[in-house]
């Protein structure tokens, strides 16, 4: 990869970590580890996962940014994140109905997405440094 492409990849990964990872995890991070999602946080968690980007889910924003990055670098973590977000989408109905297990799963998936994207951004930034 050229230096210019490496720089562009680092920028896209940073945008993913920010626009998807950061927003997805801000409520999930506050859920007690292994515990149920407190009622005060449940609605906020659902909004973070499914309505963060002008009412669209995090998966939609991921699908906007990820193809450009995938064209520059073949990193399996992009597929991994997409799978996590798809799994999250499958929990939406149950989570909106207040199912504690579905809410716990959403929080767990959100944290996994965030840490994976953060690691990806960190690695690509390190690779882009002269």
């Amino acid at each position, binding site marked *: 990869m050229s230096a210019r492409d490496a720089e562009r990849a680092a*920028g896209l990964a*940073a945008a993913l*970590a*920010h626009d998807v990872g*950061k*927003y997805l*995890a*801000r*409520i999930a*991070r*506050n859920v007690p580890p292994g515990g149920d999602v*407190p009622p*005060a*946080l449940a609605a*906020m968690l659902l*909004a*973070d996962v499914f309505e963060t980007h002008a009412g669209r889910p995090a998966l939609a924003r991921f699908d906007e940014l990820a193809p450009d990055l995938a064209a520059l670098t073949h990193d399996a973590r992009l597929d991994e994140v997409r799978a996590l977000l798809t799994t999250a989408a499958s929990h939406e109905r149950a989570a909106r109905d207040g199912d504690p297990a579905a809410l716990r799963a959403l929080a767990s998936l959100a944290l996994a997405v965030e840490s994976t994207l*953060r690691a990806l*951004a*960190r690695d690509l*930034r390190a690779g882009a440094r002269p």
Partner: protein
Amino acid sequence: MTSQPRRAQRLRRPKLLIVDDGERYVELAHALLRDYDYATRCALPGPCWTCPERRGCKLTHAHDAREADEALARHPDVDVVLLDVAFDLPEARLLPSSEPDLERRRRLQGIAILAHLRRSRGDLPVVLMTSEEELAFEDAAEALAVDEFATLAGEAAFDARALSLLVERVLARRADAPEAGGYSWGHTPAMARLRRDATTLARTSLPMLLLGETGTGKSALAERVIHPATERKGPFVAVDLSALPETLVGAELFGTARGAFSGAVERAGRFERADGGTLLLDEIGNLSPEQQRMLLLVLQDGRITRLGESAARPVDVKVIAATNADLEASVRSGTFRADLYARLNPAAKLRLPPLRERIADLPELAASFVRKTFASGVDRALLARYLEAAGLDRQAGSALASAPHAELVIGRAPAAPTRGVVFVLARPSLTALEAHAWPGNVRELELLLKTAVVSALSDALAATEGQADATPPDSTRPASRRATGTTQQARIVPIPAKLVRELVAASWAPDAPRPKRGAESFEVRPGTTAHDVAVSLERQLYERLYGETSGDFEAMARRLLLGDATTNARRVRLRFNQLGLRARRKA
């Protein structure tokens, strides 16, 4: 100390201001951090999480710099600002900037707001809510690193518990600071005791009696420390009884009914205005016998009667009485009622030590007063003008380096200051200040230092502007850039020793009690030889200096001997022991 006991000791709930273009972190804070108050832009009483209007409300916090200013004007008592870095706002709502890239301006708007806050409220702690990755991407870490109050939170920034710990750390640092609560405490044992006792007594319903010479800070202690510590919702009201004509004191304190006397109107007195809060009765020794009687009734019954009325009104007021007079002597001479004195809780009276008894605090106080001088108002504007004239206002790399900021160092100038202006006070000047009697106490020191630093800065400004005027007009650089060749050197402003000497010589408060500092105040005890008499006087001198410096041998050495204070301190300590004196264990 852990955060839990600190919280238990805390006297009021800390108030946070959140500056963020979004709503989520506010919702998160309101859901999880309910031990704090929040500075909102709303007139309704809080907290927001119990408010029926909460849904969709945009007044919960500040979304941009203008709203931050609005919230701070409404809540000057904000303890910590939680500030986001990236602000996705229309350009019109961003702070003005020379940065052409709009997206970059948005990404760094938090840094611009931080610099803006530093200019208007330099003392306000700010926690930046961001991730380390964001900072790396934006190359903003340099600008943040120079800010002593900003805390880089890393990935834990968005964890409410971690954020709470950060806030606690910032608050703890502020509580431990010598200027905690806006009051310059210093570190002498007497002030530590005063601090402890003042905050403890503040939380009781008992009246408080503050004793101390003029200028020792009685009013400031009452307003900035005791009143906030009472946690009372009502206002702080102060009345200087020495400034009121005797005939008006009763009406001023207790109020009047219409027709009570010729021209009297229906009017609440200071007691009623302070209802639910705190009333400082300054110079209480000036009350006439009749007014003392009326005050006694208030303290006994918690009720006042307006002049011209017969029905009493209940008032709930924390009374603080202050005086520089010897009230016990007034009681003995019959000019002050013994029963009123007893009601003022004399057993728990607080004595504010004169500056000469806490001279070891002088460097700390001096540094605090210099910062305070340039924290606001015309002196801050003067500092900003100097920074501009010296070309220090737009240095590359750090927006914060250009914010008006002043520090005082004693002794040698720092090699390369990176922020604001550093005033340098030479060691001999400090010695001259420590040797001064300070009859006007802390107030006198504050005024003297303010005069010294403002004079030094004005001279430096005049020299810089004169230099700029002398530069050939064909230069293509702006005037402010022409002004200085060695820009960093311009950050150092020495305070001339001659100026300090002149100010000390001219400083004297004629109505203050002249302290006994001359040899005539020593007790001359006849001895069998002249040497015995001299040793006796020397012992008294060492005892006095030991007390005045709180046992600081280096400070004693500076007042006794010329030359290096550290080396001389050992000689002073040796002589101290030879004289048969023993160092007391510090509290």
